[in-house]
C-alpha cells in the first residue's frame, strides 16, 4: 500500500463509520469523496443499504452524491478481486 499524505489520512479518519464527523473544507478538496467513502465503507461492513440515509440541502448535491457513489460501486462491481481489495483498502 502506498504511503498516504496527511490530507488523505484526514479524509480517511473523517470517513470512519463508527464516528461522528464534522467536515469543513475548501471547494474541490474532497468533501463529497469523504461522504461517498463513508457510505462505501458502511456497505463493506455489510450494512443494509435501506438503513443508510444521506441528507443534503439541495437536489443538486443529492444528485451529485448519488452519481459519485454509483460510479464507485459500478467500477468495483467489475474489478478483479485483487484490484478490488486495493481500491476498497484506499477508502480506509
Amino acid at each position, binding site marked *: 500500500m502506498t504511503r498516504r499524505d496527511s490530507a488523505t489520512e484526514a479524509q480517511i479518519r473523517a470517513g470512519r463509520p463508527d464516528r461522528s464527523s464534522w467536515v469543513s473544507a475548501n471547494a474541490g478538496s474532497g468533501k463529497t469523496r469523504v461522504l461517498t467513502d463513508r457510505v462505501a465503507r458502511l456497505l463493506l461492513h455489510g450494512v443494509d443499504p435501506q438503513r443508510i440515509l444521506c441528507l443534503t440541502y439541495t437536489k443538486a448535491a*443529492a*444528485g451529485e452524491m448519488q452519481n459519485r457513489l454509483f460510479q464507485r460501486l*459500478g467500477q468495483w*462491481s*467489475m474489478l478483479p478481486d485483487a484490484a478490488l481489495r486495493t481500491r476498497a483498502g484506499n477508502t480506509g
Partner: protein
Amino acid sequence: MSELLFPPLADGTARVFALPPGADFAAGLILGLRQRAVGRAPTLLARTRIFVNTERARRRLTDLLEDGAIALQPTIRPLQAVTELVPDLPPADPPVRRTLRLSQLVRQALRADPSIAADSAPYPLAESLAALSGEMQIEAVSPQRFRTLDPENAAGHWTRSLEFLSLIGEVMDDPKEPATDAESRLRHAVETLIRTWAEHPPTHPVIVAGSTGSRGATALLMAAVARLPQGAVILPGLDGDLPASVWGALAETGLDAPVDHPQWGLARICRTLGVTPSEVPAWAPDQTPHPSRNRLVSLALRPAPVTDQWRTDGPALASELASATQNLALIEAKDPVREAQSLALILRHTVETGQTAALITPDRQLARRVTNALHRWGLAPDDSAGRPLDLTPPGALLRLTAEALCNDVDPTRLLAVLKHPLTASTSRQGRGTHLGQTAALEACLRRDSTPQVSEHWLERQSSAPWEPEWASWLSAFLRTCATGREAGSLADQLARHRGVLERLAAGPGAPPGSAGALWQAEAGQAAAQAFEELEANADAGGDIPRSEYPLLLRSVLSTRDVPDAPFAAHPRISIWGTLEARTQTADLVLLAGLNEGIWPRLPPPDPWLSRGMRDALGLPLPEQRIGLSAHDFQQAVCAPRVVLSRALRQGEAPTVPTRWLLRLTNLLEGLPEEGPKALGRMRAAGAGWTALAATLERPNSALPRAKRPAPVVPPDAFPRTLPVTQIDRLIRDPYAVYAARVLRLRPLQALIPEADALMRGTLTHRVMERFIRATPGDLPDDAAAVLERVIRITLTEDVPWPALQQLWAQRLLALKDFIIRSEAERRALADPHDIEVAGEVALTGTPRPFLLSARADRLDRRGPQAAIYDYKGTLPSLSEARKFHKQLPLEAGIALRGGFGDPPVGDIVALHLIGLSGTGGTRDLTADRGSLDADWASLTALISAYQSGHAAMVARLRPKFAYADGDYDHLARRGEWQDSDPAELQVLE
C-alpha cells in the same frame, strides 16, 4: 381435418407459451396463430377468443389482421371485457361514486378528529382510499383483514391509519349499496367464469395474451384459461437467457424478494400457472431481433444478489458485444430541452427514410416537448396519451367558474372567465361584441381598480360604453357569484354551477338552454360527460362546504384524459406510454427520459399501509411497479433499433441515470476492451444527434446591439404643452418624455390595486388636504386630535385592506408631531388658500407656442405674498433638490405671472418640499426673484432648443439611480446599451 388448435393437455398441466423480449408482440401472436391453423378449418380461428391486455393492443391486432392473412378473424377483446361473458352482472358504478361516498365518511372523520390528517382536503384523501379499495377488490382482500393485522409491530401512526381504513370497509361492505365498482365487478366476473368453466369448459380456443398477471384477478383468469381444453396463455417478454438458478432466486416471495427485477412478475405467474419459466415454449419461432442483445440485457439486469455473474458470465459475451450494441445509440443530452430536440430530429429522419418510429416515455412533459419540436417541420405524432380534462379549454372554464362561485371575484379571475375562448361562444359575431365589451371593462378596471368586482362597482362605472344587454348579463353573473355561499348539497352546487356556466358560455341575449360551444368537440363532450356523471352521483356526495367544491371538481376532471386529436397525425411516428409499448413495436424505438424518478417513477408514498402490512394482507408491494417498469424497459430495449436517451441535468440538479441504464453502462465499462468500445460507439451515435440539435439552436447571424436612443423630433411634433413635473423628467430622462408625450405611450395600470408607493402618496396628500380643510384659519388647540381623526377616517375610506390600514396608520401617526410643528410655521407665513390648484402660463420667446402647466399641491397666500408647497414621499437631498427639482421654482414662476388666478402673486415667501415619511422633514427651496427668473430663462432656452430641432431626447440623460428602471427603459432597450454609452442621434421626420 382436425378441429383442434392445440394438441390435448396432459392432466393437471397448463398450456403456456411466451414471446421473447424485443419481439413485436402483435405480429408474433398472429404468426403463431396462422402456423397452428394451417390445415385446419377456417372456422376454427373464427371461433377463437383472444383476450389482450389493453384496448390499444386490441386495435393493433385488428389493424394487422386487416391485411387478410386470416380470412375469418378471431374475436379479440381487451381483458376487462371478460365481464361480457358473465350474464346478469349489474352495471358498474363510475369510480366517482365510490370516491364521493368515501369523501363523506372522511369529512366526518376529519371533523371528529382533525389531527388525523391535518390540512388535508377530504376529496383527495378519499381518492387515495378509493384506489386502495380498488386494489383490495382486485386482489380479493376483505376489509375485515385489517383487524387481523398486528398493530403491535406497527408504529403508532400505522395504528391510526388502520382506524381510518375502517372507512373503506363501511363503503365496501355496505349492505344498503353493495359495491359494483369496476374492480369488484371484474373480480366477480372472473370468479363466476371459472365456476362455469369447471362444469362446462368451452371447447373453442381461448387465449390470454400479453398480460403478466400482475393483478390478482388477471392471474386467476390466466390460470383458469391455461387449463381449459383449448385454452392458452401467451406471456410477453419472457427472458429465455436467464439460467435456472436465477429463476430460483426470483421465485422468492416476502419482503426481501427481488420484486423490482423485470422477470419477477413472470416468475410469479409461472408459479401460479404451475410451469417452469425456463421450459416455457416459444409461441412463434425466431421472434428475437437481436439474440445477442437479449443476452447482454439479461445479464445486465440480473437481480442484485447474483450480480457477481457479471464477472463470470460477462467475458463470454465479449465476442458478441459488437452485434449486441449494433443499432443501439445512447443520447446523454445536457438538459431535457436538448434531449427533446435530439429526439425530434431522429423522428424526422425516420420519417424521411420511410420507416416507423415510436417514442416511449412515461414523461409527459418530455413527450410534449418533442411534439412541439416536431411541429417546426409540420409533423404531428400520433400520441397515445391525451391531455387531462382539467387542462383542456372546457375544463379550464369549469375550474375558473367554480372558483368564481366559491371565492371573491377579483379582476384577474373575472377577466380570465370573460376572456376564456368558450365564453359567449354562441356566434362569432356575439363573441366579437363580447370581446370588445370585455376590453372596455378591463380599461375601467385599470382606471378604477377594485379588489373585488361587484354589481355595485359595475353600476358605478357611469361613463362605461356598455351595451345594456351585456351589462345585465354580466350583472347576473356577478350576482350569482356573490350570493349563496353557504354549504349545500353537492347536487345544488352542481345545479348552480351548470346554470352559471351555460349562461356564461351562451353569452348575452342567447336563448335559454343554450350553452354556446361549451359542450362541443371532443374535450367539451368529455367535460359534459364528467359533469353529468357527477350530477348523477351527487347523492353520494352529500353536503359539502362550498370551499371544497372547486377542489373536488378539479380532482374529478384531472382523472380523465381527452385524446389530443391532431388534425392529421403522422402515420409513421407515434408517442407511447410504457403501457402501450408492451404489445407493439416500431422499426425504431426511442426510450426517453431514462433517469431515476422518471423511469422508473418512484413508487408514490403509501399513506395508509406500510410494506409489511401490505405483504401481510397479500397486496402488491410498492416496488412491484418498478419491476413492471423494468419489464417494459427490457422489452423495449431489445427492439430492432433502439435509441436510449436521458438528460444530464434537470433544472439546477444533476440527474441520476435510471438503474437499468447504469447497470448496462457499468457492465460494459467493466468488460475488457470490447465493452468500453461498444459503449463508446453507442455514445458517439447519440452525440451526433445532440450536436445536430445544438446546431439547430444556434442562430445563423448575430443581431447588432441597439444603441442608446436619442431621437431628435421635428419641431411640430414636440409637445405644445407640458406640466412642470415633466420638465424635471425632461432634464433627467428626455427619452421618457418622448415616449410619454410624443409617442403617447403610457404604462398600463395594475389590474388589482397594489399597496405601493403611489397609493401611499395619494393617501398622504388626501390626509393633508382634509386636515387643512378642517383647520382653515389658525391651528386650533386640538389640531393633533383633528389630524389623528383625519388619518383614521382617510385610511378606512381609501385603503381596502384592513391589515394595511393598521400598518399605515402607525406610519402616519409617527408624522403627527412633525406635521403639527411645521404646520404652525407655515401658518405664520401665509394662510392656506388653494389645494391641488391648476395653473398655466404661455412661454414667451420660444420659436413656437408653448404652454407650461402645473398642479400645485398647496398654495398659501397672505395679501400679495404666496407660499407654494409640494408633498413628497421621500425627500431628495438639498443639493439634489436645488439642481433637479425645478417643479417648485417653475410653479413660482407661473404664480408670479398670474397663472394661478387672481389676485396675482407679488412675492414668493416660501417654496418647500415637505417630506411625509419617517418622522418628516422639509427642504427649503425658497429663492429670490433673480434666481426664479434665471430658472424661467433656462426653461425657455431648453424648450426653444427642442422646438428648433437642435436637441435630442436622449435616454437617461441624467439618471438619478444607475440601478433603477424607468417606465420606458425597456422600450429604449436599455441593457443592450449602458448609461455611459454615447447617444446616437436619430433625426426623425
